[in-house]
């Protein structure tokens, strides 16, 4: 692509994306924890969930450690210090204290999800994708329970899992992301409220796509969800998550932890379409998305693949990673991060090669428009014993206009001389000439921009499950709306 500057008229119109369709608030009565963060609040949350003592103790241990941790400051993002006391750590619709069956669910919640394009009822009828719907601090419903149950698959809220499957939770929760990992993960370990637990038994190919839909609704409320997926030997699961929040002038915190565990020959595909409220065109409001996601390929020949499309959030701070412990295991990371207006994204991955013949592949696409800033940050570490490890990394940045920034920060630590590491990086600009070429063929400017950007993201989008790929393309289009014309 040529580097010719974009036309001033085009630049002039790179502005508001006021098309955030998920920005509404559901008027529903909620139960709150008192504002602020303290041991008492943690006891409150734990009591609300009727948790066993060991769970409360583990929360308190994390909280005490959290008090000693500094904020992570290495990321290429800037924001005023978070006032942890000025937020609610628990908010739940009064009608939905515990997950219910679809028939018992508050119609307002059904309506909300329908408006968000997740018609829970229809989905159940169409035999489509199983959904865990998390609304603020609680899981309000999980669909297809019976069907999954008969396949031996456990798909339930994490709160329910703490009650029903304590041994598995004790064994696996915190085993991939310990509370000591980083400040945000530590806070999550202390105050997590809900999320999803998935268990796929040996030899089972999960009969349907599983998904969790996260919704923040109440103001001044943080969402701290926890997801744990365990795939036993020779099992397979594809899991998707989506997320949205109302438009508000304030910043709201979302600090999640996701842990994946894959045994011998197991495969986990984890896809995210992140569409948290990004803030307005002046950078006011939006979600702080501080997420720790990590998977461990424990078994030989296991495979974990992360695919993410990040279009929302005021700030995105996340590095879905793979620990490649089993010999011949494979880790993949496919990412699209799109920022517009004043959004900031610092995202990437870590591939930690420990086993022999482990392979990893990283394809990261960053698109920056408006005054936004996007950074790819990736670590590839080859341990001493990781004979014949291979990594391929490709980072491409696309700039729209002259006021945005794109950065690539690759770290490589290689302790084994047999490793093969390849890294490619490109930065390009959507040139005036390319846009003109499309318009000469009759394609209006905005449609042309979407076409070009979706083309740029194609390698990543094609890794999403079908329905999500179409969704993601639309989301890219919506996020770019207002960028031109």
């Amino acid at each position, binding site marked *: 692509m040529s580097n010719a500057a974009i036309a001033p008229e085009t630049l002039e119109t790179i502005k508001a994306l006021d098309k955030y369709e998920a920005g509404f608030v559901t008027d529903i009565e909620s139960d709150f924890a008192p504002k602020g963060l303290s041991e008492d609040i943690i006891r409150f949350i734990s009591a609300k969930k009727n948790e066993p003592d060991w769970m409360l103790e583990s929360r308190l241990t994390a909280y005490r450690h959290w008090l000693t941790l500094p904020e992570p400051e290495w990321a290429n993002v800037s924001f005023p210090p978070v006032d942890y006391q000025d937020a609610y750590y628990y908010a739940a619709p009064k009608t939905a204290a515990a997950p219910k069956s679809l028939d018992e669910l508050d119609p307002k919640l059904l309506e909300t999800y329908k408006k968000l394009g997740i018609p829970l009822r229809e989905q159940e009828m169409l035999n489509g994708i199983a959904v865990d719907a998390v609304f603020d601090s609680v899981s309000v419903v999980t669909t297809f329970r019976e069907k999954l149950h008969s396949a031996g698959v456990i798909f339930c809220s994490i709160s329910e899992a703490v009650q029903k499957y304590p041994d598995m939770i004790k064994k696996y929760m915190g085993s991939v992301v310990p509370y000591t990992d980083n400040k945000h993960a530590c806070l999550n370990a202390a105050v997590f409220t809900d999320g999803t637990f998935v268990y796929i038994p040996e030899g089972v190919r999960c009969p349907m796509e599983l998904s969790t839909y996260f919704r923040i609704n109440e103001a001044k409320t943080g969402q701290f969800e926890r997801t744990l997926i365990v795939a036993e030997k020779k099992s397979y699961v594809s899991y998707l998550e989506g997320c949205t929040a109302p438009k508000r002038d304030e910043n709201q915190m979302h600090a999640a932890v996701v842990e994946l565990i894959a045994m011998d020959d197991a495969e986990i595909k984890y896809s995210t379409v992140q569409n948290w409220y990004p803030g307005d065109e002046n950078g006011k409001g939006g979600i702080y998305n501080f997420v720790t996601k990590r998977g461990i390929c424990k078994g030989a020949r296991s495979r974990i693949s992360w695919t993410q499309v990040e279009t929302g959030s005021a700030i995105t701070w996340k590095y879905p990673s793979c620990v490649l412990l089993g010999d011949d295991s494979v880790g993949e990371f496919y990412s699209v991060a799109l920022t517009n207006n004043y959004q900031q994204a610092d995202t990437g991955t870590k591939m930690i090669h420990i086993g022999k013949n482990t392979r990893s592949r990283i394809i990261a696409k960053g698109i920056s428009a408006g005054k936004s800033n996007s950074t790819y940050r990736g670590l590839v570490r080859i341990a001493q014993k990781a004979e014949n490890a291979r990594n391929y990394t490709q980072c491409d940045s696309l700039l729209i206009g002259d006021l945005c920034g794109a950065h690539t920060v690759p770290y490589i630590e290689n302790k084994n001389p047999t490793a093969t590491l390849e890294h490619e990086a490109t930065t390009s600009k959507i040139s*005036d000439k*390319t846009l003109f070429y499309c318009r*000469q*063929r*009759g394609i209006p*400017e905005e*449609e042309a921009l979407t076409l070009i950007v979706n*083309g740029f993201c194609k390698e990543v989008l094609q890794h999403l499950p079908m329905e999500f790929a179409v969704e993601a393309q639309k989301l890219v289009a919506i996020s770019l709306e207002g960028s031109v014309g």
Partner: protein
Amino acid sequence: MLKIKNLHVNAAGRPVLKGLSLEMKAGEVHAIMGPNGSGKSTLSYVLAGRDGYEVTDGTVEFMGQDLLSMEPEDRAALGLFLAFQYPVEIPGVSTTTFLKTALNAIRKKRGEKELEPAAFLKLQKQKIQQLGMDPEMMKRGVNVGFSGGEKKRNEVLQMAMLAPKLAIMDETDSGLDIDALKVVSEGVNALRGPETSFLVITHYQRLLDYIKPDIVHVLANGKIQKTGGPELALLLEEKGYADFYDATEAA
């Protein structure tokens, strides 16, 4: 069909076209020849509506409308097509997707229904065959990794698919081998008809052996210096441009 009157255009503040006038009727083929830097591509860009060219004087009427006041995509919908001298690459967007998007955008603007995918593919297949192109290329990103000649052929394919009223071909022959030149010319000739006009920009008489022009213009120093029949191209080939304008004036 096309009436250009006294067109003055600045590029980067410098005058490039200085009072160009030209008239075309429906169904005619006109050739424009002229030295490097004389403003041939500039003329094509101004007609297609590219930003960065300042029209300081003159008018252009196309299909009875004031062309210069229209957006590029609206000009395309009205039937104007430009085969680029240097086509751009669009990674990740297959030629098929691109063409379908373009064709349907144009149909939409004209208030016509979108073409059914099957009808589109049938049309595309037919045009691909006619131009002797490899159907596999349609799956690759637009022009990505195409050879110079393949890019030019792809321009002609798009032209054939979009069936314009006026096709401006900016040095579509350069980069084509002898056989390709023949195939492409046949493709163009197949599009000729009472409703379709061509403005063919070229440096070589050879192309005009295949695509026979009705009228030949010599563009130099920002103006049409001479207009004649096909014999003018032969004369130029023999004598060069020196006789047609005062080169000292150009600088």
